[in-house]
């Protein structure tokens, strides 16, 4: 019994030592302005990457880390950064667990003293690491984390060390509204939305603001609740308002049902949607009804800007990359631009430079806003659903990249 107690005490002591040691060095590098700390310490410039290399998110995390490795190799082969200093990558597996993400960031800022961090590839992890980043004064650029709260907290204040290169969910609404008014020249739009979903409401709100600012009118705005299967009462009302385009900002099941029912009622208006649409089932469920519809998406494989990166990845790793490859490529590009702009590998100087640079990435031109830390007016890929008579199936056809400042 006594032995056990001693053992337990010993463990507690070891843990508390490890813990205080950790936070101590964390505070150390948190000096930021203290010259040597914060990554600017040696010949090499250290960059951190965190993400899921195991667990069910692993395919995306693996693709992301491989892309960073590939890009760093390329940069080093071309002479490195800051006039000849080599880049070094330190990567940690977060196992798709926010706690692991926090630990990984602690290690990166205290032991490895990286100058900035790329990743992670999930919103929950990106939200969890905010406090550690703030106390260490090291910035993180998230890749595909779309939750609005990652960069701007509940009080509306910007998180000083959290950035991202993907656009937030509601921003798709602004793109859809701008594209409908500017490019498709529509004047009358109707909206069917899910009254129980934040995604749907935010999307709708931004669509209305942009579409009306560009001279369009919203002729009908009808609601349903997720789980509903019949939309004909709302669609009958929309039909009466005679819109040119109907916005459907929700997920594919309801999209399929409402699109089929709209055509059944004789509605011929163009349909528009966002990244909730793409799914293996959508074409099977409603191919004919959604033919000719426009979809706002993060990127498109057939975009000419995207193709060289795809080819480079396939040549090195032999598989087709996921979306993470393109997003982390742009995050990496923004970071390199910021390092050059800062003129040093000091983490605070890099943080300050992140909002000062403009980077033309493969998914769009990225300028990180000072008060949002999100990409401002970034382009989205506009796709149209068309029937490919050769293959005998429906497919997404890349139309153009489109962004809006409003």
């Amino acid at each position, binding site marked *: 019994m006594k032995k056990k107690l001693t053992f337990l005490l010993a463990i507690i002591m070891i843990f508390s030592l490890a813990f205080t040691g950790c936070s101590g060095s964390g505070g150390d590098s948190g000096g930021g302005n203290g010259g040597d700390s914060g990554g600017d310490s040696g010949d090499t410039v250290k960059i951190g990457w965190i993400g899921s290399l195991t667990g069910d998110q692993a395919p995306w995390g693996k693709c992301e880390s491989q892309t960073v490795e590939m890009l760093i190799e390329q940069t080093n082969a071309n002479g490195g950064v800051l006039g000849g200093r080599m880049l070094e990558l330190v990567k940690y597996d977060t196992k798709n667990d926010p706690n692991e993400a926090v630990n990984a960031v602690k290690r990166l800022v205290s032991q490895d003293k990286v100058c900035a961090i790329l990743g992670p590839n999930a919103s929950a992890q990106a939200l969890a690491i905010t406090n550690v980043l703030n106390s260490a004064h090291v910035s993180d650029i998230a890749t595909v984390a779309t939750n609005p709260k990652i960069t701007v907290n509940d009080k509306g204040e910007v998180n000083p060390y959290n950035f991202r290169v993907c656009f937030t969910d509601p921003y798709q609404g602004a793109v859809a509204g701008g594209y409908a008014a500017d490019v498709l020249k529509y004047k009358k739009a109707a909206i069917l939305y899910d*009254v129980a979903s934040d995604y749907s409401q935010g999307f709708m709100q931004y669509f209305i603001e942009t579409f009306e600012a560009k001279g369009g009118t919203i002729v009908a705005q009808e609601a349903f609740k997720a789980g509903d299967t019949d939309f004909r009462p*709302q669609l009958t009302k929309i039909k009466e308002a005679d819109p040119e385009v109907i916005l459907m900002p929700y997920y594919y099941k309801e999209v399929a049902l409402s699109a089929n029912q709209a055509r*059944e009622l004789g509605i011929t208006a163009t349909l528009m949607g966002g990244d909730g649409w793409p799914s293996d089932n959508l074409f099977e469920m409603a191919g004919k009804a959604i033919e000719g519809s426009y979809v706002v998406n993060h990127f498109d494989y057939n975009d000419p800007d995207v193709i060289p990166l795809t080819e480079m990845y396939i040549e090195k790793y032999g598989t087709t990359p996921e979306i993470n490859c393109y997003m982390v490529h742009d995050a990496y590009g923004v970071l390199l631009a910021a390092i050059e702009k800062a003129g040093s590998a000091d983490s605070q100087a890099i943080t300050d430079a992140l909002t000062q640079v403009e980077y033309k990435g493969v998914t769009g031109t990225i300028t990180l806003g000072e008060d949002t830390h999100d990409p401002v007016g970034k382009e989205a890929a506009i796709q149209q659903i068309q029937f490919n008579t050769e293959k005998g199936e429906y497919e997404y056809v890349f139309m153009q990249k489109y962004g809006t400042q409003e």
Partner: protein
Amino acid sequence: MSVFLQQLINGLSIGSIYALMAVGYSLVYSILNFSNFAHGGVIMLGAYFGLYALNLLSLPFMGALVVAAFAAGLVAVGLEKIAYSPLRKRNAPSLYFIISAMGASIFLENFVVATIGPTFKTYPEIFSTTPITFGAISVSRIDILMFVIAAISLAILVFIIEKTKVGLAIRACSYSARGSNLMGVNVNRIIFVIFLLGGMLAGVAGMLFGMKYTVYPQIGVITNKSFIAAVFGGLGSLPGAVVGSILLGLIETISAGYIASQYRDLIAFSLLIIVLVVKPSGLMGKITEDKA
């Protein structure tokens, strides 16, 4: 005017789906005095049975409908044997039946998620999806078909209950199961028939629902509304279930079409609560106590 007519047709079509589902609830309630929440699960299975009968057995539409009806009927009977019969033998209060039914419903949903998977499935296109139009009004072919099949199924049910010997026994049991038992009616056999009929209706409803919309493991949730419609019309009364369902469909459509779609459920269900406060047995109900 044409918009109003279109909305009326929309309402009737939604109402007739509710009706097909609500009758199953009422049938069980009229004999056993409890709400069979597993009915939604049986409807969901009916949709899958119909889909597989069409796709794997390559049956024609009517054949698949019959298969779906009988397979769902058997599932309902099986559920009765496993989940309710033991409780009945011990004279458990109705609350226990309801809990058991809810358990069965959750089991069925998760069983399908685990075996078939959570994705949405679609029926092959059996009937042309181009609607029939009268001026500015359009009616889809499946709606007409559903309406006809719902009417025929309900007519057969009414015939069985009103004109046959089994029907007489069912009616007798719905007045007093104990009394009928004393008069020599085999109550267990009547309960078997009730679950078979209710399950077959669920199979038909499930397959029609799946054809019109889509098939997924959570279809059962939709039946919550048809249960409410059954209460509204008067639980235990078959005409009440039909009238309540059609009215609920119409009220929903009219409030979405003419007041505000955001408040559709709020308005529709406020009306239902008012009706139940004024007339607790529902529009055509026969029992006023113990409505669980």
